[in-house]
């Protein structure tokens, strides 16, 4: 499955390389848009040194971890949101008669190296913020940084597939599902304390976005939870990621079994 995935990625990359200028320009544009986000954060802190109790370095750290996780998930599974279009146009049928999971086929479709552009400002933010954080680095805290990025990516990946599977039932909800995936990415770029408490509870326990970086970051920065939730939650990200992935797998299978195809 991974081999096929990489093979398809390579094939699409070669196809994208047929238009080298557009590839480079789009890659740059993606990177610039990401960098603008960062500039926005900098602008915010030019007026207030602390927001909701967090310093610039800490917010940039949150931003960096969230966008790296999101960028990785988007890179791997972002095109699954096109499922609705494939159902409408009937191209899902063509995928279903090949001996490869349609999920792999959709996820790799149109793969272009320009998606890597999103990771440039994300990794840049991480590189900027890490030395500036006022943290006494223990081995646990050091290990937590890559661990949270990976589990965060898995969590976002699960959400992509889960929201894609919803399109088996509601073909035209593409825009609505974006609010979960892209909205989730936006949400995790800021300290959760800037949002209302009930909202934070929602993204902790319903759509477990708080586990992407918020809870692990509380551990890295050694902060008390503003909502007073148990400290064990800081290590619960893998559990949340596993739960989301299980739900996504179930939804995908169910959706495929009840797939109705289109006329013709």
């Amino acid at each position, binding site marked *: 499955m991974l081999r096929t995935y990489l093979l398809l990625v390579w094939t699409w990359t070669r196809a994208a390389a047929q238009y080298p200028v557009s590839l480079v320009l789009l890659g740059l544009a993606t990177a610039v848009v990401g960098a603008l986000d960062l500039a926005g954060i900098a602008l915010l802190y030019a007026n207030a040194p602390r927001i909701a109790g967090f310093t610039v370095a800490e917010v940039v750290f949150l931003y960096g971890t969230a966008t790296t996780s999101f960028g990785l998930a988007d890179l791997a599974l972002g095109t699954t949101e096109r499922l609705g279009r494939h159902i409408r146009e009937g191209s899902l049928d063509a995928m279903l*008669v090949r001996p490869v999971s349609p999920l792999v086929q959709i996820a790799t479709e149109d793969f272009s190296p320009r998606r890597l552009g999103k990771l440039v400002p994300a990794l840049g933010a991480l590189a900027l913020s890490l030395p500036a954080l006022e943290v006494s680095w223990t081995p646990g805290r050091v290990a937590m940084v890559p661990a949270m990025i990976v589990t965060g990516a898995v969590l976002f990946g699960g959400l992509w597939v889960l929201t894609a599977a919803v399109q088996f039932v509601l073909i035209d909800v593409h825009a609505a599902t974006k609010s979960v995936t892209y909205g989730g990415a936006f949400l995790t770029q800021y300290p959760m304390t800037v949002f209302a408490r009930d909202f934070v509870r929602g993204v902790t326990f319903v759509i477990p976005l708080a586990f992407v970086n918020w809870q692990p970051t509380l551990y890295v920065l050694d902060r008390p939870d503003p909502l007073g939730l148990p400290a064990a939650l800081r290590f619960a990200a893998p559990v949340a990621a596993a739960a989301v992935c299980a739900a996504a797998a179930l939804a995908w299978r169910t959706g495929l079994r009840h797939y109705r195809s289109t006329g013709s």
Partner: protein
Amino acid sequence: MIEVEDAVKTFTVRRRTGRLRRERTERRAVDGVSFTVAPGEFVGYLGPNGAGKSTTIKMLTGILTPTSGRVRVAGLEPARHRTALARRIGVVFGQRTTLWWDLPLRDSLTLIRHLYRVEAGAHRTRLAELTALLELGPFLDTPVRQLSLGQRMRGDLAAALLHDPELLVLDEPTIGLDVVSKATVRGFLERLNAERGTTVLLTTHDLGDIERLCDRVLIIDHGRLAYDGGLARLRATVDADRVLVVDLARPGPPVTPPASVPGVVVERVAGPRQWLRLPRSANAAAVVAAIAEHHEVVDISLGEADIEEVLAGLYRGDRPYEPAAGRPAGGPAT
């Protein structure tokens, strides 16, 4: 190769009947279809739009799960073992390509080799063979988006056959093709079936496909099988009726067929020309004589009804074996 036993596929259609009320109705796209196809057969699957052709094809290839009934293809249950089945069958949709739009055809075919895990040596031989038979040579290195419809269809056929499947399922393979491309595709399918023994199931609206290729025809209408048999028998049904074209001196109402010859019906009237359908046994000369008695006849011709008309009759629900006596004389005037 294919076993279908009492297959049913129903779709729930939701219809808005009020502000909030919704009515759910069940529509049976395929309603208890049974047939078997033996290895090596070349079967045509016909029916009007919306009759259930594509739904059947999709159940056979594992895209759709049947609501009830039993479907087996190459000994497998398609919906449950879709991926395993995909390695053993080839599928071509005439309406859409399974190739990658931006890749040269050659790259698409290489990719398919990997997806189907065809061994490199076997792939080379097979590709060379298909390239020769389908005349792919001139456009192997052209991106698929630049191919003509005929070239693309040949590319799609090659893609579906690279892994040497036992069964080839084609959904309207000649749709939109010009005469030359149609001939190439048909010639290729004929050889594939005769020389490699590949079983072929083909849906089409093109009767040329059927006449040239199919030993056996299945006709589906309103989700039910309306005919299953050889083309010869279908043709015999066709031959049962003949068409008499009469040109009168001036336009007029439909002529009255003579009472002495039963079963004669006026099918169509267009100006001074009228078409009459005659049962095989009817005495055409007597009919002509009777008409000439009351009208001034300028010209007459007698021909066989074509297969298209019989199909149209089948689709309307007429029984093919009974003469069209029940229809009102006159028919639609044009």
